[in-house]
């Protein structure tokens, strides 16, 4: 027998919730410690947001960005709508609702990405 005080040992079943939450670090702790898993979480959010931003830029380039080329190669100058030449109508008015729609769509999707990320990180338990 030794003189060392006997420390109390807690015996739990590895199948209980308490055991698992102790065994695994929370996702937020992984991010705090900048472990490889934590970085993967951060990168997944960054990629999702950057992809979304890329879509917006592509849509912008394919519409507004192509207008000068369209004016160059197509005889749009002769087209009139409501008595106004088409380039004036597109550049003076038409571009703005498009910009607003893209912005609104982006804000919605970006917030959804973040909500999904919060769910992912704060999920204490994996699927049973």
């Amino acid at each position, binding site marked *: 027998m030794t003189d060392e005080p006997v420390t109390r040992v807690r015996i739990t079943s590895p199948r209980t919730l308490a055991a698992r939450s102790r065994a695994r670090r929370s996702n*937020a702790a992984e*991010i*705090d410690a*900048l472990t490889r898993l934590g*970085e993967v979480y*951060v990168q997944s*959010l*960054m990629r999702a*947001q*950057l992809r*979304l*931003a890329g879509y*917006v*830029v592509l849509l*912008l380039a394919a519409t*507004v*960005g192509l207008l*000068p*080329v369209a*004016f*160059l190669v197509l005889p749009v*100058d002769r087209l009139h709508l409501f008595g106004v*030449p088409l*380039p*004036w109508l597109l*550049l*003076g*008015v038409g*571009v*703005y*609702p498009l*910009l*607003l729609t*893209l*912005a*609104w769509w*982006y*804000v919605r999707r*970006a*917030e959804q990405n*973040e909500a999904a*990320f*919060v769910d992912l*990180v*704060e999920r204490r338990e994996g699927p049973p």
Partner: protein
Amino acid sequence: MREVTSLAAVIVVAAATLGVGVFGLRVSRTTSDFFVASRRVGPFLNASAIGGEYLSAASFLGVAGVVLLRGVDMLWYPIGWTAGYLLLLVFVAAPLRRSGAYTLPDFAEFRVESQAARQVASWLVCLIGALYLVPQFEGAGLTLSAVTGAPTWVGAVLVAFVVLANVVAGGMRSITLVQAFQYWIKLCALLVPALILWVVWHHDGSPTRNLHSSDWVEPLQGPHATYLTYSLILATFLGTMGLPHVVVRFYTNPDGRSARRTTLAVLAMLSLFYLLPTAYGAFGRIYASDLVASGRTDSVVLELPDRVFGGSGAPLLTALLGAGAFAAFLSTSSGLVVSISGVLSQDVLSRRFGSVTGFRIGGVLAAGGALLLAAGTRGLPVAHAVELAFAVAASTFCPLLLLGIWWRGLTARGAIVGMVGGGILSGAAVLAVMVGAHAGGWPGALLAQPALATVPVAFALMVGVSLADRARIPLHVGRAMVRLHLPEAVDVDRGTYEPIA
């Protein structure tokens, strides 16, 4: 009669601006109040403030003037000045707010962990700020002399005085209220006369004289038109995010999410506003086409009421437009003086003075310096200096922000070389314009719209030097990315960076 009414309107705007500012004084006492209004500003108020700050003399008077002069190609200016906020929204708004930095130099220091990068960014803020501030003062002088006949220096001094009184007295809190108030003044000042003009035009039988000449109505006129148009698009789309007085506004949002919503509201407000200068340009073509020959197209907005109806309504409308133009000079100048003095107080004066005193001294230096510059460079094309400010911002701060936020590989050396290189190249174009150099052919086109050449070079320098300098990737880049991108709802360690000691 007209002079008296206009002078009264200008004085009312100046006094109201001072009044709102003094009201703000009672609530702003601490450093944090001075810089960012304690970050308690909601999206609608904040968006009004951004709109109020952003819509400068170039938007209020300049766009209508260049549309009258050169037609449909000039509509790309208001489009670019609006679309710049879309790119700011998708790449910069939320991360920049989450970075917690107050100014662009703060961001540079936080992200690449280098005092040298901070210094370079500070100088660039002063350069871009001055490029933008000087034309506001000059425009104020021209406007006051157009509507009241006063000598041109009076307007510049008046604007400098009101801005300085506000900045020194109240700092950012009062500026937020003042700016928000000024967006709505500017919108009404342009909208009401436009509606009346439209009714009169309709009553006249909707004349369309002078509207059909092909060089005005058809796009892409003149040599190198396609290059110039795309370069203009690039400068304005990417330059907006690098304007120091715009970026400083994002710190007044409570969190990243509201920064996005604020930007969306800004887009809506700008879209509404920018329908109007086009209408003034077209009305000017019908009713005031002689301004083109006399080279006074910048005053078309102010002169239209007199041309269309000489009766008793004209002085009132002219006064309203003059007041709106003054609101434009006051608000943009205030924003610029706030951001320049913020930088000066943190990087130049803070060692000798307290933060708030430093901010006040910085304001005096910024406004006084710009006033002297405006006196020294009289006759510089007003709108063009503003365009070049966008080109410089797009060639320096835009790559810093985009790469800093989205690329882990950015190093301090890369950031510095990119900013200095882009700044020198685009600055050379600025200098050429200032000394009045004229070049024909491609060199002339490059100097007039440098962005399409200088922005890719700045990006290439920043990426290339950072890749060569891979061993010096900032130590805390992982933590910085967490801070920039993770929503506030997640409880994580965001590092210890604090912009102000």
